[in-house]
């Protein structure tokens, strides 16, 4: 933001310059975030299809690419119905709050050295505060739509998001202790120097567990399987957004996918080294004058989004009390132990900068994972014959 601030001539009044320099990145981010769900919905339906041995959307546009554009336009022009007995004002404000909660967290995400809307020195604290804003919106939606199922969905989502923030915050505590600053920019700068310097491989067995816990808590934050209980299709029909239709339904949809991208980008900033490329000493970090920082961050975030979608089409759904059990009895104790361990290890001067084997474990870990994925990909040929008659041939 201060980048644009110097662009404007000093003669203008300060409030105008601040307003303008804030407006430009805001508009940029808004378009990026509005286009995002169009891509995610298409990617989700294609991945879901391919995982279930079917093709997914192929009709609208080449390979179904325009499918979500068509959906968006349809939702734009569809009539937004207000059922009787609906609390009109709350019914309208709720989706806006949910979308707001998802967008605001984008402000502090560092896409590049200077490509960050605002480098708040309380970055992490701000992210946690803002992401719980959408809970208010969900409860408002559930309460306002005067429908028993929506009320159930709202109550469940309130309990879920609140109880999953605590393990997430504990893990952030560990990260902040290591890095020493709350600002996301400093966290990313701390992880400079290739894959092995990423916080994911710092204190090797501890930080991957911390990453898994943070990722699970993030899943619960944006109501994704196995924690999609607020809008559990099979029990509560559609949870809090049962009564919404038309553009408001699109807003809920947009908020969910934006929240997914936000959680993934925060996770990749904290654990996967933000906009640094995995190769050491800045190889592939920029080609000529153009920095590839944002590209790397978005690639990592999209891989995590893919993992979220991958989980959605593999796992069944937890029940509400099991959800609470996992949050309070499993994630919380482990994250507390991790925080204490990290604190202790930091105190000992020998392990001040991580275990000695952190350096080469990073490479082995990634190679093992991607190798296994490719190996499984190879053994995937199912029988080509689709009809039984050609089985006989």
């Amino acid at each position, binding site marked *: 933001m201060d980048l644009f601030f110097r662009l404007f001539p000093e003669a203008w009044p300060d409030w105008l310059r601040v307003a303008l320099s804030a407006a430009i990145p805001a508009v940029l981010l808004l378009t990026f975030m509005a286009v995002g769900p169009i891509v995610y919905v298409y990617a989700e339906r294609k991945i879901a299809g391919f995982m279930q041995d079917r093709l997914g959307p192929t009709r609208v546009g080449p390979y179904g690419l325009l499918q979500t554009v068509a959906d968006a336009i349809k939702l734009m022009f569809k009539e937004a119905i207000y059922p009787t007995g609906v609390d009109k004002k709350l019914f309208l404000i709720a989706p806006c709050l949910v979308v707001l909660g998802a967008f605001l967290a984008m402000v502090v995400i560092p896409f590049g050295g200077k490509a960050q809307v605002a480098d708040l020195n309380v970055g992490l604290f701000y992210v946690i505060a803002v992401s719980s804003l959408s809970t208010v919106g969900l409860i408002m939606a559930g309460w306002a739509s005067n429908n028993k199922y929506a009320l159930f969905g709202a109550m469940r989502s309130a309990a879920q998001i609140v109880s999953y923030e605590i393990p997430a915050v504990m893990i952030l505590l560990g990260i902040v202790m290591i890095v020493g600053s709350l600002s996301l920019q400093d966290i990313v700068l701390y992880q400079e120097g290739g894959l092995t310097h990423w916080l994911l491989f710092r204190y090797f067995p501890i930080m991957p567990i911390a990453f898994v816990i943070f990722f699970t808590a993030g899943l619960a934050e944006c109501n994704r399987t196995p924690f999609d209980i607020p809008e559990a299709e099979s029990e509560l029909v559609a949870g809090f957004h049962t009564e919404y239709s038309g553009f408001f339904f699109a807003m809920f949809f947009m908020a969910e996918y934006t929240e997914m991208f936000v959680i993934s980008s925060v996770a990749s900033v904290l654990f996967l080294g933000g906009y640094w490329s995995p190769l050491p000493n800045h190889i592939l970090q920029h080609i000529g004058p153009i920095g590839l920082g944002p590209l790397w961050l978005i690639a990592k975030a999209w891989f995590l989004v893919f993992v979220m979608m991958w989980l959605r089409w*593999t796992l*069944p759904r937890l029940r509400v009390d099991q959800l609470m059990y996992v949050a309070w009895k499993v994630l919380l104790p482990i994250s507390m132990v991790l925080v204490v361990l990290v604190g202790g290890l930091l105190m000992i001067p020998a392990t001040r900068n991580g275990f000695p084997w952190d350096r080469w474990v990073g490479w082995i870990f990634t190679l093992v994972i991607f190798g296994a994925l490719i190996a499984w990909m190879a053994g995937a040929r199912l029988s080509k014959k689709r009809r039984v008659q050609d089985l006989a041939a």
Partner: protein
Amino acid sequence: MASYGWRVDDLDTDEMILNMGPQHPSTHGVLRLELRTDGEVVRAARPHIGYLHRCFEKHAENVDYPGVIPYTDRMDYVASMGNSLGYALAVETLLKIEVSPYVQTIRVIMAELQRIASHCVAVGTYGMDIGAFTPFLHLLRDREKILDMFEWTCGARLLYNYNWVGGLSHDLPEGFVKACRQFLREFEAITYPELIDLLLKNKIFVKRTANIGVCPVEVAVSYDLTGPNLRGSGPPRDLRKDAPYSGYENYEFQVCVGKGEFGPLGSCFDRNWVRTVEMAESAKIVHQALDRLEKMERADVHEKVPKRVKPPKSEVYSRSEAPRGQLGYFIVADGTGVNPYRVKVKSPCFTAMSVFHVLSRGMYIADIIALIGSLDVVLGEIDR
């Protein structure tokens, strides 16, 4: 602190009547559940059925004996081969017809293939009720292959009118035996182990189904639960073993019984586990039946089909092991008319649903859906 004069239990919230269905994504058809819930916990449940009632028994009295078979197919539309087999066996005992072993073997093959297809739907939709969408589509992909086989043999994919009184409507096409063996090999090699890993061994699925809807044996027998619902609670009661019909005595297979690995015996998980293991058993039976078929010479399938079905004045209650349980036909013939005098069907899902209000007390709402899924009811058969 001054006490405000009310005690805690004045504060209990009053109970809410929640209407689940008949328009609900996971009630396996048109079923309305009236739940009295206190927060998430269900205090009492009352199922309302009858939305899909098509007066099967009145139709059966106005159509002649072979004409009833298309109606029996439409009762349990997910496993209609089982229904028409039960009806055909009942009328054959009335007419005292003994069908040739060739036809009996084909009937066993078709019934067991239909059992695999029906259990594919049952286990698949049960996974979807719990939230796992992918296993459902994998199982449907394989069910399509079985429906292809049925269409290849008798021309229809869902409602076959294949088992006639005294024989079959079509003979097996050439190459059927080879294709069926190839399909079964693929089913046992790929689909079955994948289903076990993806769904049944999944910890979340186990946690969601292992200790809910536990149905002790006395309640199961008193409410006449049959088939996988009864075997899930322990007793190995299978009509194909207890009272073998249509040549089941010369195939060996185990009766799959719930083991209660992950929780009390008779839970939703056990019922679903029995259905999954039963699919593998049925595949074994079809293999043995195909071997028998190859050793047999081809008899004409219309040989014993009587021109005019007019049974003498008598009545019979005959039972057969349909995929969902024991399907009983009570047929009264008055010896004069061409139409049956009275056909009463005891459908396994009807009795399975009658135990619902007993099992569903004190459950969560999410478990109610899991319970309906594990009882594997088809509303077409409940409402007839």
